[in-house]
């Protein structure tokens, strides 16, 4: 197998993108998650995140989070200049542990919900929202 110089360069650049970009984007998110969980393991599932697949306007995107028995649910927007969106802490008088609100998204990105469940464990859900007009 032989590569031309141009192909080699392209491969190198591609590899750099694959390794560097996700790592850099995720680092801030993982810091926020670790702060919330205290470094505990986070399982997929156990928390529901509802958001539109395509947001009509990034300025006002309706979302809903729910996790049975959760004491708190944190919401992050991975692609915003500052990822934290809100943390919902449920008290003894909460009914079903769910909440909806409207959020700003700077562009197409993943929304992440991390719930602290009744047994002290953590659950995670994420969904991509496509934004054609940024908020």
């Amino acid at each position, binding site marked *: 197998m032989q590569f031309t110089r141009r192909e080699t360069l392209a491969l190198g650049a591609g590899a750099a993108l694959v390794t560097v970009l996700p790592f850099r984007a995720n680092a801030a998110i993982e810091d926020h998650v670790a702060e919330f969980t205290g470094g505990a393991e986070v399982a997929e599932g156990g928390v529901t995140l509802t958001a539109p697949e395509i947001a009509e306007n990034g300025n006002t995107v*309706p979302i809903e989070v729910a996790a049975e028995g959760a004491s708190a649910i944190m919401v992050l927007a991975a692609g915003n200049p500052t990822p934290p969106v809100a943390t919902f802490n449920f008290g003894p008088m909460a009914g079903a542990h769910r909440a909806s609100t409207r959020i700003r998204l700077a562009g197409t990105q993943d929304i992440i919900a991390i719930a602290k469940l009744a047994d002290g464990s953590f659950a995670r859900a994420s969904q991509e929202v496509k934004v*054609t*007009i940024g908020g």
Partner: protein
Amino acid sequence: MKLKALTAMAALLVAPAAFAGGADDDTLVINGEIEMTTKADAPEHMEGTGIDQVISGWHFRADETQQIQMDDFENQGMIFVDQAINTWNTAEGSAGQSCADCHNDPESMAGVTATYPKWNEDAGEVRTVQMQVNDCRVNRMGAEPWPYDAAPAINMEALIASQSRGMPVDVAIDGPAAETWEQGKDIYYTRYGQLELACASCHEENYGNYIRADHLSQGQINGFPTYRLKNAKLNGAHSRFKGCVRDTRAETFATGSPEFVALELYVKSRGNGLSVEGPSVRN
């Protein structure tokens, strides 16, 4: 490579059908109570336009946006209606009077928005709701007039509109209003700006299609004032006209100008038969 090109072409062919920007078939009921007419037979004067059914802009929006308008506690436009109720009850100006002193409750305004803009015999001109409000402020209250489409004016217009929700738009286009209406019609069909676009180019000939990433509606104003997700406040019809004309890369008319008053009357008359929806919620 040939296969790829074919696939791309197929995708292009399928795209318009899959992502058509047309009106949906949902039903608009506010608070589970107020049933809205959001599609109606086009009024007689629209014969020859190619439009036989007039459709509220609500039908061109995503389900999430539609939902916000269906409940007054989700409709962020209603916070400004609340603010206007405060203003309604507050005395202002040299006469020390409030709106409530003459007009009692805001409910007394039911039906007003359905028939405005309207010919005012004494003034000898067609007047919008905001012009009439300012007439009250200046001549009866001795207060400063509100700048056109500024927050207090548009909030008051929304409060007044909300009293007519569900009533059919029914503006008069004949008699003394006919001349203004004709002027508005002329503006509607005049191409403006470097892009040489008339209102009709988009909202009559191309509603249901996409303009960039957005749906083109019929440009109905039965839902004004409208809370736009874009700027998170109430927007007046004249401000929306201004935005459209600006987008054609033209010098625009001013809010409250005689040109936009005429255009408001004409565009509103294209929605005769649709329910008053203000304050509606749009993109």
